[in-house]
Protein backbone atom coordinates (compact mmCIF):
# COMPACT_ATOMS: atom_id res chain seq x y z
CA UNK A 1 0.00 0.00 0.00
CA UNK A 2 2.69 2.42 1.03
CA UNK A 3 4.97 1.81 -1.89
CA UNK A 4 2.06 2.05 -4.28
CA UNK A 5 0.96 5.23 -2.58
CA UNK A 6 4.40 6.71 -2.92
CA UNK A 7 4.29 6.51 -6.65
CA UNK A 8 0.70 7.60 -6.85
CA UNK A 9 0.41 11.10 -8.20
CA UNK A 10 -1.99 12.71 -10.53
CA UNK A 11 -0.64 10.89 -13.57
CA UNK A 12 -1.75 7.29 -13.16
CA UNK A 13 -1.69 5.01 -16.13
CA UNK A 14 -5.17 4.55 -17.52
CA UNK A 15 -6.87 1.21 -16.97
CA UNK A 16 -9.18 -0.51 -19.48
CA UNK A 17 -12.27 1.04 -17.90
CA UNK A 18 -10.86 4.52 -18.56
CA UNK A 19 -10.36 3.66 -22.21
CA UNK A 20 -13.88 2.27 -22.47
CA UNK A 21 -15.42 5.37 -20.92
CA UNK A 22 -13.30 7.73 -23.01
CA UNK A 23 -14.13 5.71 -26.11
CA UNK A 24 -17.81 6.15 -25.30
CA UNK A 25 -17.33 9.88 -24.81
CA UNK A 26 -15.54 10.16 -28.14
CA UNK A 27 -18.29 8.12 -29.80
CA UNK A 28 -21.06 10.30 -28.39
CA UNK A 29 -19.13 13.41 -29.42
CA UNK A 30 -18.47 12.26 -32.97
CA UNK A 31 -21.56 10.21 -33.84
CA UNK A 32 -23.92 13.15 -34.53
CA UNK A 33 -21.31 14.55 -36.91
CA UNK A 34 -20.96 11.21 -38.65
CA UNK A 35 -24.74 10.87 -38.89
CA UNK A 36 -24.92 14.35 -40.37
CA UNK A 37 -22.73 13.06 -43.20
CA UNK A 38 -24.89 9.93 -43.54
CA UNK A 39 -28.12 11.93 -43.73
CA UNK A 40 -26.60 14.30 -46.28
CA UNK A 41 -25.84 11.36 -48.55
CA UNK A 42 -29.40 10.02 -48.83
CA UNK A 43 -32.60 11.26 -50.42
CA UNK A 44 -34.97 13.39 -48.38
CA UNK A 45 -37.48 10.54 -48.29
CA UNK A 46 -34.95 8.06 -46.98
CA UNK A 47 -33.85 10.35 -44.14
CA UNK A 48 -37.35 10.56 -42.69
CA UNK A 49 -38.00 6.82 -42.92
CA UNK A 50 -37.66 4.49 -39.94
CA UNK A 51 -35.25 2.97 -39.18
CA UNK A 52 -32.91 5.85 -39.85
CA UNK A 53 -29.96 5.14 -42.16
CA UNK A 54 -26.66 4.33 -40.48
CA UNK A 55 -24.39 4.02 -43.50
CA UNK A 56 -23.58 6.62 -46.17
CA UNK A 57 -25.76 6.55 -49.28
CA UNK A 58 -25.14 7.58 -52.89
CA UNK A 59 -26.69 11.05 -52.94
CA UNK A 60 -24.07 13.24 -51.30
CA UNK A 61 -22.94 14.90 -54.50
CA UNK A 62 -26.49 15.61 -55.71
CA UNK A 63 -27.42 17.10 -52.35
CA UNK A 64 -24.31 19.25 -52.32
CA UNK A 65 -25.03 20.56 -55.81
CA UNK A 66 -28.62 21.28 -54.87
CA UNK A 67 -27.71 23.06 -51.64
CA UNK A 68 -25.02 25.00 -53.44
CA UNK A 69 -27.17 26.15 -56.36
CA UNK A 70 -30.73 26.29 -55.08
CA UNK A 71 -30.19 27.48 -51.53
CA UNK A 72 -27.10 29.60 -52.19
CA UNK A 73 -25.00 27.93 -49.53
CA UNK A 74 -22.03 29.03 -51.64
CA UNK A 75 -22.82 32.71 -51.13
CA UNK A 76 -23.44 32.06 -47.43
CA UNK A 77 -20.08 30.34 -47.18
CA UNK A 78 -18.32 33.35 -48.70
CA UNK A 79 -20.24 35.78 -46.46
CA UNK A 80 -19.39 33.77 -43.36
CA UNK A 81 -15.72 33.59 -44.27
CA UNK A 82 -15.59 37.34 -44.82
CA UNK A 83 -17.41 38.14 -41.57
CA UNK A 84 -15.47 35.68 -39.42
CA UNK A 85 -12.17 36.72 -41.00
CA UNK A 86 -12.71 40.44 -40.45
CA UNK A 87 -13.98 39.93 -36.91
CA UNK A 88 -11.03 37.68 -36.03
CA UNK A 89 -8.45 40.07 -37.52
CA UNK A 90 -9.77 43.16 -35.83
CA UNK A 91 -10.45 41.44 -32.50
CA UNK A 92 -6.90 40.08 -32.39
CA UNK A 93 -5.38 43.46 -33.26
CA UNK A 94 -7.39 45.55 -30.80
CA UNK A 95 -7.24 42.91 -28.07
CA UNK A 96 -3.46 42.74 -28.32
CA UNK A 97 -3.14 46.53 -28.04
CA UNK A 98 -5.50 46.72 -25.07
CA UNK A 99 -4.13 43.55 -23.48
CA UNK A 100 -0.58 44.98 -23.72
CA UNK A 101 -1.68 48.25 -22.12
CA UNK A 102 -3.46 46.43 -19.28
CA UNK A 103 -0.57 44.05 -18.70
CA UNK A 104 2.51 46.24 -19.03
CA UNK A 105 1.77 49.96 -19.25
CA UNK A 106 1.14 51.91 -16.06
CA UNK A 107 -1.74 54.38 -16.29
CA UNK A 108 -4.30 55.94 -14.01
CA UNK A 109 -7.53 53.97 -13.71
CA UNK A 110 -6.02 50.76 -15.06
CA UNK A 111 -7.53 48.40 -12.49
CA UNK A 112 -10.96 49.99 -12.65
CA UNK A 113 -11.01 49.84 -16.42
CA UNK A 114 -9.86 46.22 -16.43
CA UNK A 115 -12.61 45.29 -13.98
CA UNK A 116 -15.03 47.05 -16.30
CA UNK A 117 -13.81 44.99 -19.27
CA UNK A 118 -14.40 41.78 -17.33
CA UNK A 119 -17.82 42.96 -16.13
CA UNK A 120 -19.01 43.63 -19.67
CA UNK A 121 -18.64 39.93 -20.45
CA UNK A 122 -21.82 39.21 -18.48
CA UNK A 123 -24.06 41.47 -20.56
CA UNK A 124 -26.00 39.31 -23.02
CA UNK A 125 -26.61 40.43 -26.62
CA UNK A 126 -30.34 40.48 -25.89
CA UNK A 127 -29.88 43.89 -24.26
CA UNK A 128 -28.60 45.55 -27.38
CA UNK A 129 -30.40 43.94 -30.32
CA UNK A 130 -33.59 46.02 -30.21
CA UNK A 131 -31.91 49.44 -30.51
CA UNK A 132 -29.32 48.08 -32.92
CA UNK A 133 -32.06 46.69 -35.11
CA UNK A 134 -33.81 50.08 -35.15
CA UNK A 135 -30.53 51.73 -36.08
CA UNK A 136 -29.61 49.38 -38.90
CA UNK A 137 -33.17 49.68 -40.22
CA UNK A 138 -32.82 53.47 -40.31
CA UNK A 139 -29.44 53.18 -42.03
CA UNK A 140 -30.73 50.64 -44.53
CA UNK A 141 -28.19 48.11 -43.25
CA UNK A 142 -30.50 45.14 -42.87
CA UNK A 143 -28.90 42.32 -44.85
CA UNK A 144 -25.61 44.21 -45.08
CA UNK A 145 -22.63 42.38 -43.67
CA UNK A 146 -21.24 45.43 -41.86
CA UNK A 147 -24.14 45.26 -39.43
CA UNK A 148 -22.82 41.97 -38.08
CA UNK A 149 -19.13 42.88 -38.33
CA UNK A 150 -19.12 46.28 -36.61
CA UNK A 151 -20.53 45.24 -33.20
CA UNK A 152 -17.94 42.43 -32.98
CA UNK A 153 -14.78 44.38 -33.82
CA UNK A 154 -13.31 43.74 -30.38
CA UNK A 155 -14.35 41.47 -27.51
CA UNK A 156 -13.82 41.68 -23.76
CA UNK A 157 -12.80 38.05 -23.73
CA UNK A 158 -10.00 38.78 -26.20
CA UNK A 159 -8.67 41.74 -24.22
CA UNK A 160 -8.61 39.66 -21.06
CA UNK A 161 -7.04 36.69 -22.86
CA UNK A 162 -4.18 38.77 -24.30
CA UNK A 163 -3.63 40.55 -21.01
CA UNK A 164 -3.26 37.23 -19.17
CA UNK A 165 -0.81 36.00 -21.76
CA UNK A 166 1.37 39.12 -21.96
CA UNK A 167 1.45 39.48 -18.19
CA UNK A 168 3.69 36.42 -18.06
CA UNK A 169 5.20 36.19 -21.52
CA UNK A 170 6.49 39.74 -21.97
CA UNK A 171 9.32 40.85 -19.65
CA UNK A 172 9.02 44.52 -18.68
CA UNK A 173 12.76 44.90 -19.29
CA UNK A 174 12.21 44.26 -22.99
CA UNK A 175 9.76 47.15 -23.24
CA UNK A 176 12.01 49.43 -21.20
CA UNK A 177 15.08 48.57 -23.26
CA UNK A 178 13.19 49.48 -26.41
CA UNK A 179 12.21 52.78 -24.84
CA UNK A 180 15.84 53.42 -23.97
CA UNK A 181 16.61 53.07 -27.64
CA UNK A 182 14.13 55.82 -28.28
CA UNK A 183 11.38 53.64 -29.71
CA UNK A 184 7.93 55.14 -29.55
CA UNK A 185 4.94 53.01 -28.61
CA UNK A 186 3.92 51.97 -32.10
CA UNK A 187 7.45 50.73 -32.79
CA UNK A 188 7.39 48.83 -29.51
CA UNK A 189 4.10 47.24 -30.48
CA UNK A 190 5.49 46.19 -33.83
CA UNK A 191 8.97 45.06 -32.83
CA UNK A 192 8.52 43.84 -29.26
CA UNK A 193 4.88 43.06 -28.43
CA UNK A 194 3.72 41.39 -31.64
CA UNK A 195 6.66 38.95 -31.85
CA UNK A 196 6.17 37.88 -28.23
CA UNK A 197 2.38 37.73 -28.48
CA UNK A 198 2.24 35.85 -31.76
CA UNK A 199 1.31 32.38 -30.41
CA UNK A 200 -1.48 33.79 -28.26
CA UNK A 201 -2.66 35.97 -31.13
CA UNK A 202 -2.93 32.90 -33.33
CA UNK A 203 -4.93 30.98 -30.73
CA UNK A 204 -7.21 33.94 -30.04
CA UNK A 205 -7.70 34.39 -33.76
CA UNK A 206 -8.85 30.80 -34.12
CA UNK A 207 -11.19 30.97 -31.13
CA UNK A 208 -12.76 34.22 -32.33
CA UNK A 209 -13.03 32.88 -35.88
CA UNK A 210 -14.92 29.82 -34.63
CA UNK A 211 -17.19 31.98 -32.49
CA UNK A 212 -17.92 34.45 -35.30
CA UNK A 213 -18.47 31.60 -37.75
CA UNK A 214 -21.06 30.04 -35.45
CA UNK A 215 -22.66 33.23 -34.11
CA UNK A 216 -26.42 33.03 -34.33
CA UNK A 217 -28.59 35.47 -32.38
CA UNK A 218 -27.67 38.85 -33.84
CA UNK A 219 -26.96 37.65 -37.41
CA UNK A 220 -30.35 35.91 -37.35
CA UNK A 221 -31.95 39.29 -36.63
CA UNK A 222 -29.78 41.51 -38.83
CA UNK A 223 -29.63 39.27 -41.92
CA UNK A 224 -32.31 37.31 -43.74
CA UNK A 225 -32.05 33.86 -45.34
CA UNK A 226 -33.08 35.25 -48.73
CA UNK A 227 -30.85 38.35 -48.60
CA UNK A 228 -27.16 37.88 -47.89
CA UNK A 229 -27.08 35.45 -44.98
CA UNK A 230 -24.23 33.86 -43.11
CA UNK A 231 -24.26 30.06 -43.03
CA UNK A 232 -26.08 29.99 -39.70
CA UNK A 233 -28.81 32.30 -40.94
CA UNK A 234 -29.18 30.33 -44.16
CA UNK A 235 -29.43 27.14 -42.09
CA UNK A 236 -32.08 28.66 -39.88
CA UNK A 237 -34.04 29.53 -43.01
CA UNK A 238 -33.75 25.94 -44.22
CA UNK A 239 -34.70 24.52 -40.84
CA UNK A 240 -37.78 26.66 -40.29
CA UNK A 241 -39.18 25.65 -43.65
CA UNK A 242 -38.96 28.77 -45.81
CA UNK A 243 -37.97 26.38 -48.58
CA UNK A 244 -39.40 22.96 -49.24
CA UNK A 245 -38.41 20.87 -46.29
CA UNK A 246 -36.16 18.22 -47.70
CA UNK A 247 -34.33 17.07 -44.60
CA UNK A 248 -31.43 15.68 -46.63
CA UNK A 249 -30.84 19.15 -48.09
CA UNK A 250 -31.22 20.78 -44.68
CA UNK A 251 -28.59 18.46 -43.25
CA UNK A 252 -26.35 18.96 -46.28
CA UNK A 253 -26.47 22.64 -45.39
CA UNK A 254 -25.50 21.76 -41.83
CA UNK A 255 -22.63 19.69 -43.20
CA UNK A 256 -21.37 22.56 -45.37
CA UNK A 257 -21.38 24.87 -42.36
CA UNK A 258 -19.57 22.39 -40.11
CA UNK A 259 -16.92 20.76 -42.28
CA UNK A 260 -14.63 23.80 -42.74
CA UNK A 261 -14.32 24.25 -38.98
CA UNK A 262 -13.87 20.53 -38.36
CA UNK A 263 -11.01 20.52 -40.87
CA UNK A 264 -9.42 23.43 -39.01
CA UNK A 265 -9.85 21.52 -35.75
CA UNK A 266 -8.39 18.34 -37.18
CA UNK A 267 -5.27 20.22 -38.29
CA UNK A 268 -4.85 22.70 -35.45
CA UNK A 269 -6.78 20.92 -32.70
CA UNK A 270 -3.81 20.66 -30.36
CA UNK A 271 -3.21 24.42 -30.42
CA UNK A 272 -6.89 25.19 -29.92
CA UNK A 273 -7.03 22.83 -26.97
CA UNK A 274 -4.01 24.59 -25.50
CA UNK A 275 -5.59 27.98 -26.11
CA UNK A 276 -8.86 27.12 -24.42
CA UNK A 277 -7.12 25.79 -21.36
CA UNK A 278 -4.61 28.62 -20.99
CA UNK A 279 -7.23 31.33 -21.44
CA UNK A 280 -9.64 30.18 -18.80
CA UNK A 281 -7.61 28.75 -15.99
CA UNK A 282 -5.69 31.79 -14.91
CA UNK A 283 -8.94 33.55 -14.21
Amino acid at each position, binding site marked *: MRTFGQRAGRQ*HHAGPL*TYILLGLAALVSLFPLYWNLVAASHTGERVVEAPAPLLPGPRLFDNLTFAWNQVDMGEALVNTTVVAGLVALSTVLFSTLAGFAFAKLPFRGRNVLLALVVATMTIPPQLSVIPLYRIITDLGWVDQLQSVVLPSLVAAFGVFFMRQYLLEALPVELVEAARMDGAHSLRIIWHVVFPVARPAMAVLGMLVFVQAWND*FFWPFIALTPDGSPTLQVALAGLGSGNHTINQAVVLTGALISTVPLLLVFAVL*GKHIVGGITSGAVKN
Partner: protein
Amino acid sequence: MATSVRAATGDGTAPPDPSPPPPPSPPAPSRWRGRLYRWDLKATPYAFVSPFFLCFAAFGLFPLIYTGWLSLHRVELGGEAQWRGLDNYTALWGSDFFWNALANTFTIGVISTVPQLLMALGLAHLLNYKLRGRGFFRVAVLAPYATSIAAATLVFAQLFNSDYGLINTVLGWVGFDPVDWESSKWPAQIAISVIVIWRWTGYNALIYLAAMQAVPQDLYEAASLDGASRFRQFISVTIPSIRPTILFTIVVSTIGATQLFGEPMLYGGSLGVSGGSGNQFQTLSLLMYEKGWITGALGQASAIAWVMLLILLLIGAARLLVARLNKESA
Protein backbone atom coordinates in the same frame (compact mmCIF):
# COMPACT_ATOMS: atom_id res chain seq x y z
CA MET B 1 7.01 58.16 -14.32
CA ALA B 2 8.91 58.58 -17.53
CA THR B 3 11.90 60.23 -15.95
CA SER B 4 12.08 57.77 -13.11
CA VAL B 5 12.17 54.84 -15.50
CA ARG B 6 14.97 56.52 -17.40
CA ALA B 7 16.93 57.30 -14.28
CA ALA B 8 16.51 53.80 -12.90
CA THR B 9 17.60 51.83 -15.94
CA GLY B 10 19.59 54.31 -17.96
CA ASP B 11 22.30 55.43 -15.60
CA GLY B 12 25.74 55.18 -17.01
CA THR B 13 25.55 52.27 -19.41
CA ALA B 14 23.30 53.38 -22.23
CA PRO B 15 23.11 56.95 -23.51
CA PRO B 16 19.50 58.04 -23.21
CA ASP B 17 19.29 59.67 -26.64
CA PRO B 18 21.29 58.06 -29.41
CA SER B 19 19.92 60.38 -32.09
CA PRO B 20 22.27 60.56 -35.13
CA PRO B 21 22.89 64.34 -35.42
CA PRO B 22 23.99 65.15 -31.89
CA PRO B 23 26.28 68.16 -31.24
CA PRO B 24 25.12 71.37 -33.02
CA SER B 25 21.97 72.20 -31.09
CA PRO B 26 21.19 69.35 -28.69
CA PRO B 27 18.83 71.03 -26.20
CA ALA B 28 15.98 72.02 -28.53
CA PRO B 29 15.28 68.65 -30.25
CA SER B 30 15.88 66.64 -27.11
CA ARG B 31 13.46 68.75 -25.11
CA TRP B 32 10.95 68.39 -27.90
CA ARG B 33 11.63 64.68 -28.04
CA GLY B 34 11.37 64.45 -24.30
CA ARG B 35 7.99 66.10 -24.30
CA LEU B 36 6.82 63.87 -27.12
CA TYR B 37 8.20 60.89 -25.24
CA ARG B 38 6.38 61.79 -22.06
CA TRP B 39 3.18 62.48 -23.97
CA ASP B 40 3.57 59.14 -25.75
CA LEU B 41 4.01 57.40 -22.40
CA LYS B 42 0.96 59.07 -20.89
CA ALA B 43 -1.51 58.91 -23.74
CA THR B 44 -0.65 55.62 -25.43
CA PRO B 45 -2.22 53.32 -22.84
CA TYR B 46 -5.51 55.12 -23.24
CA ALA B 47 -5.22 55.01 -27.01
CA PHE B 48 -4.61 51.27 -26.85
CA VAL B 49 -7.61 50.48 -24.66
CA SER B 50 -9.91 52.97 -26.39
CA PRO B 51 -11.06 50.75 -29.29
CA PHE B 52 -12.60 48.35 -26.81
CA PHE B 53 -14.36 51.05 -24.85
CA LEU B 54 -15.54 52.90 -27.96
CA CYS B 55 -16.95 49.67 -29.35
CA PHE B 56 -18.57 48.84 -26.02
CA ALA B 57 -20.03 52.33 -25.68
CA ALA B 58 -21.53 52.22 -29.16
CA PHE B 59 -22.73 48.62 -29.34
CA GLY B 60 -23.12 47.68 -25.66
CA LEU B 61 -23.75 50.51 -23.25
CA PHE B 62 -25.74 52.87 -25.44
CA PRO B 63 -28.14 50.16 -26.67
CA LEU B 64 -28.48 48.86 -23.13
CA ILE B 65 -29.68 52.25 -21.88
CA TYR B 66 -31.77 52.75 -25.00
CA THR B 67 -33.41 49.37 -24.33
CA GLY B 68 -34.21 50.55 -20.80
CA TRP B 69 -35.76 53.71 -22.21
CA LEU B 70 -37.78 51.71 -24.75
CA SER B 71 -39.03 49.41 -22.01
CA LEU B 72 -40.84 52.40 -20.49
CA HIS B 73 -42.63 53.13 -23.76
CA ARG B 74 -45.07 51.68 -26.17
CA VAL B 75 -43.16 51.26 -29.44
CA GLU B 76 -43.91 49.44 -32.62
CA LEU B 77 -41.39 48.47 -35.30
CA GLY B 78 -40.63 51.68 -37.19
CA GLY B 79 -43.13 53.70 -35.11
CA GLU B 80 -42.96 56.53 -32.57
CA ALA B 81 -42.55 55.86 -28.86
CA GLN B 82 -45.27 56.74 -26.35
CA TRP B 83 -44.51 57.02 -22.65
CA ARG B 84 -46.01 54.17 -20.64
CA GLY B 85 -44.11 54.23 -17.35
CA LEU B 86 -43.82 50.79 -15.83
CA ASP B 87 -46.81 49.39 -17.76
CA ASN B 88 -44.66 46.97 -19.74
CA TYR B 89 -43.25 45.51 -16.54
CA THR B 90 -46.61 45.18 -14.79
CA ALA B 91 -47.95 43.58 -17.96
CA LEU B 92 -45.15 41.02 -17.76
CA TRP B 93 -45.94 40.38 -14.11
CA GLY B 94 -49.50 39.50 -15.05
CA SER B 95 -48.61 37.48 -18.16
CA ASP B 96 -48.73 33.68 -18.08
CA PHE B 97 -46.43 33.61 -21.10
CA PHE B 98 -43.77 35.48 -19.19
CA TRP B 99 -43.88 33.21 -16.14
CA ASN B 100 -43.93 30.18 -18.40
CA ALA B 101 -40.86 31.42 -20.29
CA LEU B 102 -39.08 32.26 -17.05
CA ALA B 103 -39.82 28.79 -15.65
CA ASN B 104 -38.71 27.11 -18.90
CA THR B 105 -35.48 29.11 -18.98
CA PHE B 106 -34.82 28.01 -15.42
CA THR B 107 -35.66 24.32 -15.85
CA ILE B 108 -33.82 23.95 -19.18
CA GLY B 109 -30.95 25.83 -17.58
CA VAL B 110 -30.76 23.37 -14.69
CA ILE B 111 -31.24 20.25 -16.84
CA SER B 112 -28.55 21.39 -19.24
CA THR B 113 -25.99 22.86 -16.84
CA VAL B 114 -25.84 20.46 -13.91
CA PRO B 115 -25.25 17.19 -15.84
CA GLN B 116 -22.98 19.05 -18.26
CA LEU B 117 -20.59 20.25 -15.57
CA LEU B 118 -20.68 16.97 -13.62
CA MET B 119 -19.89 14.98 -16.74
CA ALA B 120 -17.19 17.47 -17.67
CA LEU B 121 -15.57 16.91 -14.27
CA GLY B 122 -15.61 13.15 -14.77
CA LEU B 123 -14.32 13.46 -18.31
CA ALA B 124 -11.50 15.75 -17.22
CA HIS B 125 -10.55 13.23 -14.54
CA LEU B 126 -10.35 10.47 -17.16
CA LEU B 127 -8.36 12.64 -19.57
CA ASN B 128 -5.90 13.34 -16.78
CA TYR B 129 -4.67 9.75 -16.78
CA LYS B 130 -1.54 8.80 -18.74
CA LEU B 131 -3.18 7.84 -21.99
CA ARG B 132 -2.34 6.44 -25.34
CA GLY B 133 -4.09 8.54 -28.01
CA ARG B 134 -4.40 11.47 -25.63
CA GLY B 135 -4.48 14.03 -28.44
CA PHE B 136 -7.23 12.16 -30.27
CA PHE B 137 -9.50 11.98 -27.23
CA ARG B 138 -9.05 15.66 -26.46
CA VAL B 139 -9.80 16.82 -29.97
CA ALA B 140 -12.69 14.34 -30.27
CA VAL B 141 -14.52 15.63 -27.21
CA LEU B 142 -13.92 19.19 -28.43
CA ALA B 143 -15.38 18.54 -31.90
CA PRO B 144 -18.96 19.41 -30.78
CA TYR B 145 -17.68 22.84 -29.75
CA ALA B 146 -16.73 23.47 -33.38
CA THR B 147 -20.27 22.64 -34.47
CA SER B 148 -22.65 25.58 -34.65
CA ILE B 149 -25.87 25.81 -32.69
CA ALA B 150 -27.80 25.68 -35.95
CA ALA B 151 -26.06 22.61 -37.38
CA ALA B 152 -26.13 20.72 -34.09
CA THR B 153 -29.79 21.49 -33.47
CA LEU B 154 -30.88 20.46 -36.97
CA VAL B 155 -29.06 17.13 -36.62
CA PHE B 156 -30.44 16.44 -33.16
CA ALA B 157 -33.96 17.41 -34.25
CA GLN B 158 -33.76 14.48 -36.67
CA LEU B 159 -32.23 12.11 -34.13
CA PHE B 160 -34.98 13.00 -31.64
CA ASN B 161 -37.82 12.81 -34.15
CA SER B 162 -40.68 10.90 -32.52
CA ASP B 163 -41.64 8.89 -35.61
CA TYR B 164 -38.40 7.91 -37.29
CA GLY B 165 -35.62 9.30 -35.09
CA LEU B 166 -32.67 7.10 -34.21
CA ILE B 167 -33.02 7.72 -30.48
CA ASN B 168 -36.51 6.24 -30.30
CA THR B 169 -35.32 3.35 -32.44
CA VAL B 170 -32.53 2.59 -29.98
CA LEU B 171 -34.91 3.00 -27.03
CA GLY B 172 -37.17 0.50 -28.80
CA TRP B 173 -34.33 -2.05 -28.98
CA VAL B 174 -33.88 -1.76 -25.23
CA GLY B 175 -37.62 -2.21 -24.73
CA PHE B 176 -38.89 1.31 -24.13
CA ASP B 177 -41.98 2.81 -25.72
CA PRO B 178 -41.34 5.64 -28.18
CA VAL B 179 -41.05 9.03 -26.45
CA ASP B 180 -42.73 12.14 -27.81
CA TRP B 181 -39.68 14.40 -27.88
CA GLU B 182 -41.48 17.36 -29.45
CA SER B 183 -44.88 18.05 -27.96
CA SER B 184 -44.47 16.64 -24.45
CA LYS B 185 -43.01 19.23 -22.16
CA TRP B 186 -40.29 17.40 -20.25
CA PRO B 187 -39.01 15.23 -23.10
CA ALA B 188 -38.76 18.32 -25.30
CA GLN B 189 -36.87 20.23 -22.63
CA ILE B 190 -34.58 17.26 -22.10
CA ALA B 191 -33.91 16.98 -25.84
CA ILE B 192 -32.99 20.68 -26.03
CA SER B 193 -30.77 20.28 -22.97
CA VAL B 194 -29.03 17.34 -24.62
CA ILE B 195 -28.01 19.61 -27.50
CA VAL B 196 -26.53 22.12 -25.05
CA ILE B 197 -24.82 19.38 -23.07
CA TRP B 198 -23.41 17.81 -26.22
CA ARG B 199 -21.92 21.08 -27.46
CA TRP B 200 -20.32 22.22 -24.19
CA THR B 201 -19.26 19.21 -22.09
CA GLY B 202 -15.95 18.66 -23.86
CA TYR B 203 -15.08 22.34 -23.74
CA ASN B 204 -15.66 22.49 -19.99
CA ALA B 205 -13.79 19.23 -19.51
CA LEU B 206 -10.68 20.74 -21.12
CA ILE B 207 -10.91 23.76 -18.86
CA TYR B 208 -11.13 21.48 -15.81
CA LEU B 209 -8.30 19.34 -17.14
CA ALA B 210 -5.94 22.30 -17.32
CA ALA B 211 -6.86 23.28 -13.77
CA MET B 212 -6.30 19.71 -12.56
CA GLN B 213 -2.86 19.58 -14.09
CA ALA B 214 -1.90 22.67 -12.11
CA VAL B 215 -2.72 20.99 -8.78
CA PRO B 216 0.56 20.41 -6.90
CA GLN B 217 1.69 16.79 -6.93
CA ASP B 218 2.55 16.70 -3.21
CA LEU B 219 -1.09 17.20 -2.24
CA TYR B 220 -1.85 13.84 -3.80
CA GLU B 221 1.21 12.24 -2.28
CA ALA B 222 0.21 13.44 1.17
CA ALA B 223 -3.33 12.18 0.66
CA SER B 224 -2.23 8.75 -0.50
CA LEU B 225 0.19 8.48 2.42
CA ASP B 226 -2.86 8.99 4.59
CA GLY B 227 -4.37 6.00 2.81
CA ALA B 228 -6.91 7.93 0.74
CA SER B 229 -8.32 5.99 -2.19
CA ARG B 230 -8.21 7.53 -5.64
CA PHE B 231 -11.89 8.41 -5.47
CA ARG B 232 -11.32 9.94 -2.06
CA GLN B 233 -8.41 11.95 -3.50
CA PHE B 234 -10.62 13.18 -6.32
CA ILE B 235 -13.25 14.38 -3.83
CA SER B 236 -10.99 15.85 -1.18
CA VAL B 237 -7.96 17.05 -3.17
CA THR B 238 -8.92 17.64 -6.81
CA ILE B 239 -12.32 19.26 -6.35
CA PRO B 240 -11.27 21.76 -3.65
CA SER B 241 -8.12 22.66 -5.59
CA ILE B 242 -9.97 23.57 -8.76
CA ARG B 243 -12.88 25.28 -6.98
CA PRO B 244 -12.24 28.71 -8.61
CA THR B 245 -12.34 27.10 -12.06
CA ILE B 246 -15.56 25.28 -11.20
CA LEU B 247 -17.09 28.55 -10.06
CA PHE B 248 -15.96 30.18 -13.30
CA THR B 249 -17.62 27.51 -15.46
CA ILE B 250 -20.80 27.67 -13.37
CA VAL B 251 -21.03 31.40 -13.99
CA VAL B 252 -20.30 31.11 -17.70
CA SER B 253 -22.81 28.34 -18.30
CA THR B 254 -25.45 30.09 -16.21
CA ILE B 255 -25.05 33.20 -18.34
CA GLY B 256 -25.35 31.01 -21.43
CA ALA B 257 -28.46 29.28 -20.08
CA THR B 258 -30.15 32.60 -19.30
CA GLN B 259 -29.93 33.68 -22.92
CA LEU B 260 -30.74 30.35 -24.58
CA PHE B 261 -32.28 31.07 -27.98
CA GLY B 262 -31.02 29.20 -31.04
CA GLU B 263 -31.48 25.64 -29.77
CA PRO B 264 -35.20 25.87 -28.83
CA MET B 265 -35.86 28.14 -31.81
CA LEU B 266 -34.53 25.69 -34.40
CA TYR B 267 -35.56 22.57 -32.51
CA GLY B 268 -39.18 23.70 -32.81
CA GLY B 269 -39.00 24.05 -36.60
CA SER B 270 -41.89 26.20 -37.82
CA LEU B 271 -43.21 26.40 -34.23
CA GLY B 272 -39.82 27.43 -32.91
CA VAL B 273 -40.52 31.06 -32.05
CA SER B 274 -43.39 30.17 -29.76
CA GLY B 275 -41.33 27.32 -28.26
CA GLY B 276 -43.49 24.46 -29.46
CA SER B 277 -47.26 24.08 -29.90
CA GLY B 278 -47.97 24.77 -26.21
CA ASN B 279 -45.00 27.06 -25.50
CA GLN B 280 -43.53 24.07 -23.68
CA PHE B 281 -39.96 25.15 -24.42
CA GLN B 282 -40.29 28.88 -24.99
CA THR B 283 -37.41 30.63 -23.22
CA LEU B 284 -37.15 34.30 -22.22
CA SER B 285 -35.06 35.06 -25.32
CA LEU B 286 -37.63 33.44 -27.57
CA LEU B 287 -40.46 35.33 -25.89
CA MET B 288 -38.51 38.54 -26.34
CA TYR B 289 -37.97 37.78 -30.02
CA GLU B 290 -41.64 36.88 -30.48
CA LYS B 291 -42.79 40.11 -28.80
CA GLY B 292 -40.32 42.27 -30.71
CA TRP B 293 -40.23 40.78 -34.16
CA ILE B 294 -43.47 38.80 -34.58
CA THR B 295 -45.91 40.90 -32.51
CA GLY B 296 -43.92 44.08 -33.13
CA ALA B 297 -44.17 45.27 -29.51
CA LEU B 298 -40.66 46.56 -28.99
CA GLY B 299 -41.45 48.15 -25.61
CA GLN B 300 -42.53 44.81 -24.15
CA ALA B 301 -39.58 43.03 -25.73
CA SER B 302 -37.26 45.63 -24.15
CA ALA B 303 -38.83 45.03 -20.75
CA ILE B 304 -38.07 41.31 -21.09
CA ALA B 305 -34.47 42.14 -21.99
CA TRP B 306 -34.14 44.24 -18.87
CA VAL B 307 -35.60 41.50 -16.71
CA MET B 308 -32.86 39.26 -18.11
CA LEU B 309 -30.25 41.84 -17.14
CA LEU B 310 -31.73 41.95 -13.66
CA ILE B 311 -31.49 38.17 -13.35
CA LEU B 312 -27.85 38.26 -14.45
CA LEU B 313 -27.07 41.00 -11.94
CA LEU B 314 -28.59 38.82 -9.22
CA ILE B 315 -26.42 35.90 -10.36
CA GLY B 316 -23.40 38.21 -10.34
CA ALA B 317 -24.19 39.32 -6.80
CA ALA B 318 -24.59 35.70 -5.72
CA ARG B 319 -21.22 34.92 -7.29
CA LEU B 320 -19.52 37.70 -5.34
CA LEU B 321 -21.16 36.45 -2.16
CA VAL B 322 -19.96 32.89 -2.77
CA ALA B 323 -16.45 34.15 -3.58
CA ARG B 324 -16.39 36.10 -0.33
CA LEU B 325 -17.62 33.13 1.71
CA ASN B 326 -14.98 30.98 0.00
CA LYS B 327 -12.29 33.44 0.97
CA GLU B 328 -13.44 33.52 4.58
CA SER B 329 -13.58 29.75 4.90
CA ALA B 330 -10.17 29.30 3.26
